[in-house]
């Protein structure tokens, strides 16, 4: 494949996103919120009360942090309610805003009722709604960035929702494993380990399939965050798998490493988009090849 091409003074063709650091943090917290809701329902159904309570509070808190980050990123924060002005299936951000609205409303209702110990039937209904909104909340963010003209994001559309889903499971599992006594934390540890394994595999698969367009994952900030992420998640998951059951300190340390690693993963993907937009080769060369094939 040729990497030679003509350009206009080497200038970018697509614009870099204008999104601020709030956005990768939101991907991280939104993921925790969504996956915690699912883990919560699972714990509730299997009668693991400690795990159920903690995951409910973790999810509800993340569901408050998420929208706050999103509102802060807006150019006109006072107009945040315009997000719920319409529902557009062509806009992953519109679908996501509604999902987050439902998820946040349900998880916080359930959390408040849990604290008050009142209206059990309403609380159960809220928990179910929250668990239903959770899974799409963990995966839509991958599609949100894939539905752009940024080459490394759009071409990664097959893996990104899976990658973000896996990362969310790992994060929620890690957060729960840190805050629940080891005797009740089995599901959380397994979720963290399983999520990390899936996420590492998906990231490799995506970069392999992307080829030339995916090389930004090896460069600059995206590369740095990617290496930090791998190191943290792998060490954290190994710690959880080996000593996590016996030692509370290991569970806390391992969980913290997984959380740090998954946050770094979101940053790696986020920065990769900027790097991809900046270099017109990633726009022109694949499009030239597409035209040549037709």
């Amino acid at each position, binding site marked *: 494949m040729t990497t030679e*091409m*003509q*350009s*206009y*003074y080497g200038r*970018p*063709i*697509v*614009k870099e*996103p*204008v999104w601020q650091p709030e956005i990768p943090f939101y991907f991280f917290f939104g993921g925790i919120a969504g996956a915690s809701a*699912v*883990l919560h329902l*699972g*714990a509730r159904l*299997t009668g693991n009360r400690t795990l159920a309570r903690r995951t409910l509070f973790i999810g509800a808190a993340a569901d408050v942090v998420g929208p706050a980050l999103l509102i*802060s*990123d*807006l*150019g*006109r924060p006072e*107009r*945040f309610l*315009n997000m719920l002005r*319409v529902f*557009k*299936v*062509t*806009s*992953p*951000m*519109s679908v996501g805003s509604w999902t987050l609205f439902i998820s946040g409303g349900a998880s916080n209702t359930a959390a408040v009722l849990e604290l008050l110990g009142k209206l059990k039937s309403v609380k159960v209904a809220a928990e179910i709604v929250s668990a239903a909104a959770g*899974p*799409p909340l963990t*995966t*839509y963010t*991958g*599609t949100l960035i894939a539905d*752009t*003209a940024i080459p490394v*994001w*759009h071409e990664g559309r097959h893996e990104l*929702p899976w990658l973000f*889903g896996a990362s*969310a*499971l790992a994060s929620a599992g890690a957060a729960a494993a840190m805050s629940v006594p080891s005797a*009740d934390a*089995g*599901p959380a540890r397994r*979720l963290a380990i*399983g*999520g990390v394994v*899936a996420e590492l595999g998906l990231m490799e698969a995506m970069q392999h399939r992307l080829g030339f367009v995916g090389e930004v994952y090896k460069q600059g900030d995206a590369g740095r965050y990617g290496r930090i992420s791998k190191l943290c998640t792998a060490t954290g998951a190994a710690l959880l798998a080996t000593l996590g*059951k016996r030692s509370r300190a290991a569970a806390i340390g391992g969980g913290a490493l997984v959380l740090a690693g998954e946050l770094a993963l979101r940053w790696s993907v986020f920065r990769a*988009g900027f790097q991809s*937009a900046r270099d017109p080769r990633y*726009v*022109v060369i694949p499009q030239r090849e*597409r*035209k040549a094939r037709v």
Partner: protein
Amino acid sequence: MSVLPEAWPDTYGDEAKPRMGFFTDTSICIGCKACEVACKEWNAIPEDGLVWTGESYDNTSELGANSWRHVAFVEQRKPLKVDGGGDTAELDAEPLRWLMSSDVCKHCTHAGCLDVCPTGSLFRTEFGTVVVQEDICNGCGYCVPACPFGVLDKRHLPRAPGDEPLALPVLGKKEDGRVWKCTLCYDRLKGGHEPACAKACPTKSIQFGPLDELRERADKRLEKLTIEGWNGAQLYGRDPEDGVGGFGAFFLLLDEPEVYGLPPDPAVPTKNLAEMWVNTAVAAAATLVVAALAVLGGRE
């Protein structure tokens, strides 16, 4: 009954107008930048920095929140005509040509910016053009990377030259924060006038009119240039079957699109969205399965 929602122009009923657009014939552009100036004047677009880029006569560099027309200048060691001839080249031993092209929002048939806008701020007008409603835009910025041409951008205001952007929003002192782009002079169209850039263009390089007529005119022009042997003459965005369903504002170029900083085969990102949503839903379901397995593995 169709499962698709009603689309332009049906949504406008009796108020629908013929689709209007631009045909920018770069073969007669003289690089005067009257279009840039007229656009800034009419639309009251703020100044956005005075710099010397050293890139031929181009100091605007790109389309953005504060540049809705951008004249590109390309200096080439290529002959003007395919047979090596051409007025400029004949004066010199080495061939030389100077390409100029006034770029603008393409007002795509399938517009990525409009599709992804979560507030409905971006909409399609009765003229088939794509416009941002600035009283609704909340500055989420999604349209910025969704545009295959890098047309839209967020505006930062007020800013004295050299000021750093505000790190945090300060009520009342905030930067503008909304996205801006060419409106194809929606206000002028409403009043029955042509857009400011087309009005100001002294060579009729920028032609405004019903898209059907413009396409016919462009086909004739290309035929003429091809017969005359102009090097690299091609229509860009004329084809309704391309990745964005054809441009509402299309071009006659004298070289490949990327030479002018344009994507050679643009496609609207939402083209693959149905498949992407299915994938998102399956991945979401998979998280449930993984969580179930984790829970069923036991308490400890």
